[in-house]
C-alpha cells in the first residue's frame, strides 16, 4: 500500500465493551460509503471487522474496560487494510481448531478467525497475536 496515496479512514481506540461494537462498525460502514465499494465487499469488511473486534474484546482484553482495542483502517484505490489490536496476552492463531472439521461443526464458537481468513485476501497475526492485519484487494472496480 503506497504511503503517498493511502487515506486513513479510522484510527481509533475503543473501550473493551461488546455493546459498543455494532455502533462503531455502523460508523465505519458510513465512512466506507465514500469509497464507493461494491455491496459484497462492504459485507465482507463489515463481518471481518465485527469478528475481529468481538475477539479482541472477549478473548484479547477479556472484557476489561480499562483496556482498549485499537482499530486502524487505511485504503488506497486498490486495497483496504484493517488492523485490530488488543492489549491482552496474545494467542497462537495456528492453534485454533478448524471449525469446519466434522468434530467441530456443531461448536458454539470458534468461527470468527476462519471467516476472516476466508473473506479477506491476506490475514496476518502480529505482536504475538494481539494484532490481526486484514487486507482486502479491490477487484474489477470495487
Amino acid at each position, binding site marked *: 500500500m503506497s504511503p503517498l496515496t493511502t487515506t486513513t479512514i479510522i484510527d481509533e481506540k475503543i473501550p473493551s465493551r461488546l455493546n459498543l461494537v455494532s455502533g462503531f462498525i455502523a460508523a465505519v460502514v458510513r465512512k466506507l460509503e465514500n469509497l464507493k465499494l461494491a455491496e459484497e465487499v462492504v459485507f465482507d469488511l463489515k463481518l471481518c471487522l465485527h469478528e475481529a473486534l*468481538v475477539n479482541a474484546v472477549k478473548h484479547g482484553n477479556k472484557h476489561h474496560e480499562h483496556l482498549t482495542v485499537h482499530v486502524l483502517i487505511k485504503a488506497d484505490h486498490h486495497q483496504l487494510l484493517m488492523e485490530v489490536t488488543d492489549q491482552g496476552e496474545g494467542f497462537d492463531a495456528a492453534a485454533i481448531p478448524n471449525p469446519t472439521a466434522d468434530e467441530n461443526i*456443531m461448536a*458454539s464458537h470458534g*468461527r470468527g478467525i476462519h471467516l476472516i481468513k476466508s473473506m479477506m485476501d491476506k490475514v496476518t497475526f502480529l505482536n504475538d497475536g494481539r494484532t490481526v492485519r486484514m487486507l482486502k484487494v479491490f477487484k474489477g472496480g470495487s
Partner: protein
Amino acid sequence: MDIKVEKINDVVLVVLAGELNMDNSNALREVFKKSLKEANKKVLVDFEKLSFIDSSGIATLIEMFQNLGKISGRLCLCNVNKKIIGVFEITKVHKLFGIFASREEALKNI
C-alpha cells in the same frame, strides 16, 4: 433486528428482518426456546429481510438445529441472500439446514 413469529399448520415460521448479530442473537434464542417448550418439531426461519449475520447468529441456529434433532424435529431456512449463503458455505453449516429458495417451497418440504 425485528422478529415475527407465526404458526402455519404444524410449522413455526420465524421471520427475521435487519441484522442477526451478537447484540440480538439471544432474542432469537428465546423464540427458539419457546418453540421447543411448546414441543414444535418444525421450524422455518425466513431470511428474506435479513441483511447480515455474524458467528453468534450462526451459533444460535446450530444450537436450535441440535435441540430440534433431539426431538426428531427439523430446522429449515428460506430466502437466504447470496452473501449469507456464502457465510454458511465458508463455515460449512449449510450442510446442516434445509435451505429453500422460497417460503412456499420450504413449507411444502419441511
